[in-house]
């Protein structure tokens, strides 16, 4: 029995280090290769020794697919390809291919240069790794080899995020990566066609949340920023360089314009200017509105938002600063936070999800005293606000995607176990017949598939059959068709029996039956024949019964003749003759006539 096996190496009942192995039709695919923000040790990367204990992965994997550029989806890629060893193809979209190496380099710098870790991947390794990348276009069917094909769909979430369909023969898997079912200020909504995969592997970050309307959240956000700035406070918005940052920038930019505000908005340097450039060049990946107007006005050219310099943090007066990274676990955002945390006039707005173990997560869970490196504690006096702007699908969105793709099974990854549990129940309730799985890391889920067998049918046979069926098939009376399946080498051809005989150079063997039935019927031969005809006509509804001028009756292709017995003119002999192909009818007729004719 063919089956599909799915094993998460990361993101199984967890958020972070997404890495999922899929075996389908004899092919092995790795979906994403991410790192975990919450760990600084070995647990940071997926456990590749699950695949093989000794050495390189190339012979165990047919391809690696990266859904988008967030580090929890691609952060382990250079480690996997250069340090563990993988030389096969790595697929990702153009924007991901462009942005991913920059984030990796950034990650490397923080880890190696600032934290002083050794035994980490180098800049050269990132470059070598990126050389193995094959860019993927939306909706393009990429033939990885003769049997394995993959196709990318738009996922929203961040620039270049994609969902992928993996297909071998008639078996298929869809992996969503992270996605967003509602369009936002700069990206469109995820979309997939009714591809009916055997299994849909979906993220479930917001499995239990049904978010209120985006407009309300935006208004809230603007109100809070505005109030803080009005009373002279500073607003820190920790973001990832690409994604939410651009959406919130567009939001603030238009608000500042409309309200004619003067307080400066800064964007922490380095990545960000570059980041906006990427958005300009990959404008086809943004939403309809931005694409339509980009010639007149490029939304990513900001008037009010300026580059940040480290010294600005100590400037007096109000300001708004976007700084990376988004979970306050390192870098500039953490530095600024330390400076501003002591003043209750200030505010930090967390616009996205924070992984356990990060400063961001501690803040959101309400800690007022934070232990910092070097055994110092930091007292948090500034206001902490959480606003979910991170572009993940909520429970409603996940259900919507299931309805769109109509999978046979659903698997939840990239979420917390408790929330998954809730959503799993909901899915199984709402969609009868869909099983839902939520494996832990290292746990294999096996899904039997039941593929149908493709066969070449001769057009003659198909047309003959279609003609019999009439324009509209009758569901109550299905017609059984008859054909011969010829199996030769690896080809399967279904042809009519006659054609099969001819092709295989076989003779046909005619099997015929002749039966004489005696009837007591005191009429002339022709009258008896008419009586036989009338009788059969009345019994055999739906059959062709013909009275032929040459003194015979034909039922379909069975011939009946009547003659008188030599001894007794009242005893009639009905001669029936049929071939094996009409056996059922012939047998029926002979028994019927033996019972005599009705008076």
């Amino acid at each position: 029995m063919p089956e599909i096996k799915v094993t998460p190496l990361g993101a199984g009942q967890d958020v972070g280090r997404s890495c999922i192995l899929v075996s389908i039709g004899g092919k092995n695919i790795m979906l994403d290769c991410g790192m975990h923000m919450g760990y600084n040790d070995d647990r940071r990367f997926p456990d590749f020794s699950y695949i093989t204990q000794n050495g390189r992965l190339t012979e165990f994997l047919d391809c690696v697919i990266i859904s988008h550029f967030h580090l929890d989806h691609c952060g382990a890629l250079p480690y996997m390809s250069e340090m563990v060893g993988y030389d096969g193809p790595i697929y990702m979209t153009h924007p991901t291919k462009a942005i991913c190496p920059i984030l990796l380099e950034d990650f490397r710098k923080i880890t190696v240069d600032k934290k002083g870790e050794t035994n980490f991947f180098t800049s050269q390794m990132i470059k070598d790794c990126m050389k193995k990348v094959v860019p993927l276009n939306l909706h393009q069917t990429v033939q990885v080899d003769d049997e394995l094909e993959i196709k990318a769909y738009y996922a929203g979430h961040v620039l270049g995020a994609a969902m992928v369909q993996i297909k071998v023969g008639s078996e298929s898997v869809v992996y969503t990566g992270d996605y967003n079912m509602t369009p936002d200020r700069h990206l469109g909504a995820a979309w997939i066609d009714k591809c009916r995969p055997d299994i849909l592997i979906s993220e479930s970050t917001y499995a239990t949340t049904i978010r209120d309307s985006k407009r309300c959240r935006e208004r809230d956000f603007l109100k809070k920023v505005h109030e803080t700035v009005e009373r002279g406070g500073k607003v820190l918005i920790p973001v990832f360089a690409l994604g939410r940052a651009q959406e919130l920038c567009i939001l603030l930019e238009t608000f500042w314009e409309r309200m004619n505000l003067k307080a400066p908005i800064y964007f922490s340097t380095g990545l960000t200017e570059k980041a906006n450039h990427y958005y300009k060049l990959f404008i086809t990946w943004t939403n309809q509105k931005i694409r339509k107007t980009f010639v007149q006005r490029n939304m990513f050219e900001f008037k009010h938002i300026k580059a940040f310099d480290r010294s600005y943090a100590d400037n007096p007066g109000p300001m708004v600063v976007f700084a990376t990274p988004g979970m306050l676990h390192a870098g500039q955002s953490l530095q600024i936070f330390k400076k501003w945390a002591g003043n209750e006039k200030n505010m930090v707005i967390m616009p996205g999800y924070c992984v356990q173990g990060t400063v961001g997560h501690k803040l959101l869970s309400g800690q007022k005293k934070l232990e910092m490196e070097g055994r110092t504690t930091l007292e948090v006096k500034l206001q902490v606000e959480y606003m979910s702007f991170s572009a993940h699908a909520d429970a409603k969105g996940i259900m919507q995607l299931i309805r769109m793709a109509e999978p046979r099974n659903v698997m939840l990854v990239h979420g917390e176990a408790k929330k998954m549990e809730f959503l799993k129940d909901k899915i199984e309730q709402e969609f009868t017949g869909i099983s839902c799985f939520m494996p832990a890391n290292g746990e294999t889920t096996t899904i039997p598939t039941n593929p149908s067998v493709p066969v070449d049918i001769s057009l003659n046979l198909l047309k003959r059959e279609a003609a019999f069926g009439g324009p509209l098939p009758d569901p109550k009376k299905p017609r059984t068709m008859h054909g011969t399946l010829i199996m030769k080498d690896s080809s399967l051809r279904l042809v009519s029996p006659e054609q099969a005989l001819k092709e295989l150079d076989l003779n046909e063997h005619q099997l015929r039956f002749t039966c004489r039935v005696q009837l007591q019927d005191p009429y002339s031969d022709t009258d008896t024949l008419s009586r036989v005809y009338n009788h059969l006509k009345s019994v055999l509804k739906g059959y062709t019964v013909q009275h032929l001028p040459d003194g015979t009756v034909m039922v379909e292709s069975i011939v009946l003749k009547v003659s008188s017995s030599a001894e007794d003119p009242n005893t009639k002999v009905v001669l029936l003759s049929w071939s094996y192909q009409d056996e059922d009818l012939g047998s029926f007729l002979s028994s019927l006539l033996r019972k005599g004719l009705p008076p």
Partner: protein
Amino acid sequence: MKLYCLSGHPTLPCNVLKFKSTTIMLDCGLDTTSVLHFLPLPLVHSPRLSKLPGWISKDGAVSLEKRELLDLSTIDVILISNYHCMMALPYITEHTGFTGTVYATEPTLQIGRLLMEELVNFMERVPKAQSATCWKNKEIQRLLPGPVKEAVEVWTWRRCYSMQEVNSALSKVQLVGYSQKVELFGAVQVTPLSSGYSLGSSNWIIQSHYEKVSYVSGSSLLTTHPQPMDQSSLKNSDVLILTGLTQIPTANPDGMLGEFCSNLAMTIRAGGNVLVPCYSSGVIYDLLECLYQFIDSANLGSTPFYFISPVANSSLEFSQIFAEWLCQNKQSKVYLPEPPFPHAELIQTNKLKHYPGIHGDFSNEFRQPCVVFTGHPSLRFGDVVHFMELWGKSSLNTVIFTEPDFSYLDALAPYQPLAMKCVYCPIDTRLNFHQVAKLLKEVQPLHVVCPEQYTQPPPTQSHRSDLMLELQPPPMPYRRCSVLGLPFRRRYERIQLLPELAKSLVPSEIKPGISVATVSAVLHTKDNKHVLQPPPKPAPVPPSKKRKRVVEEPPELVTPKPLLSGAVPLEPFLALLHKHGITEVKVEDTPDGHILHLQAEDTLIQLEEDGTHIVCDSNEPLRATLRDLVLRFLQKL
């Protein structure tokens, strides 16, 4: 399978393919060469032009290569290969009852829209006080002067469409990406492939499980800006429809580019202006890139370059956002991130300026000597008309023709006498005959269909037998209004056996390596997909109350029993009869076999090489037994 050829223009094709009950239109190019019969449309009234004899000054008409060869409302889909080949789209999709879908890549749609917008703008900004159509009547046309008198089929000439019609037509476009498999009604799959000619240009594969038609239109093997041509996917085609080869087979595009630059530099140095009549997208990107490298070395750093078109800005902006559709080295620039085309830098450094028209900003900032890129290449409408009038009288100036679509002599005719220099550097990057011969050798299609022009040398160079297609078997030529029957027969169709049915089959080996199994199944066809299901289980016999009726009930009209093959050998058959208690058998030899007389049962069995005949009168159980015994020796098919 049939091909209806609606256009005779080899580079502006319009063919309709009927394949497996789908009707697919391949491109709809608009042949605008008929505008050469008209006077130029100047922005300001020009007394000189309006007095010219021999031309008529009438509404901006374009000729539509279409005839009522088939009903346009029956077209299911239109496949567009590049933005030059979609200019007639509004004529096909609007006011014809067309309800289908148009497939094109995103750059093709966006740039096609710009070109249509430009055309409409050119036409509409010179409104005509009156428009006439009566002259199209044959009787009146006869009396008209000049070339219009000889023009054929003027009644197919139509007024230019409006922006509203363009928008409506383009709203029917469904975007596709290269190598995307698009299913049409479950019967046919179409796939666009990169053709290397322009941004988003594609060739198309139209295939079912067994047949493959390749449609090659406007392809290029030169390394210019677009993604390289995908050749390998064209392999194993049954039919390859070949259109859109280079219109200037004798000119080498690289050489022409060199000549373009040197003529441009020469004119500027001498203090003259250069006019380049061109389309707003396509080769202009390559010209600008070439100039970008050339400007400094030729000391043209201070010369202003102007690009004037209602869509100039859009065209330049759009070219920068289609990284996925560009060649490798342009693509990798985006990763830096830098704009893929260097004209961004030309604009930033103020060397290249673009304007929507000659009014407004341009007239204030205009400095001479300069280089002006503007349309339309026919010199009949657009801002180019103004510049021809302005600069035509001075021999210092030069007009350089780069677009190959129009005869430059015809284009210049209404401006004669002309003092300005004329240079003809047509740049056509499409395949030449040498390249196409190599390509066809590589991809090996069974049959090639092409416009008849490609099967003979060009009329002006009848000795150049290298400027035609020579193939074995010879290509099937088409001309306008041809209907070709394409030479292949469909014999098979894909069908799916449900797993339950597949499991129930009992294969038996008939010959070494060949097995057969009889299949009795119910055919289900939905959306042109066929599935075989196991036959339904017979309904259980109703309870005994109705038993009497049941006997009377004739058997269901079912499909016949399988065919039989093989022979019944005498001795083993006798032995088998013996085993079943039939011992009294009298065997009689006949010329073709044997007759067995079962004396006790008064039954005859006639055994022959290819037939068995059982004559058994009243003993039905015996007949059934004999039947089953005979069947044991035979193969069911």
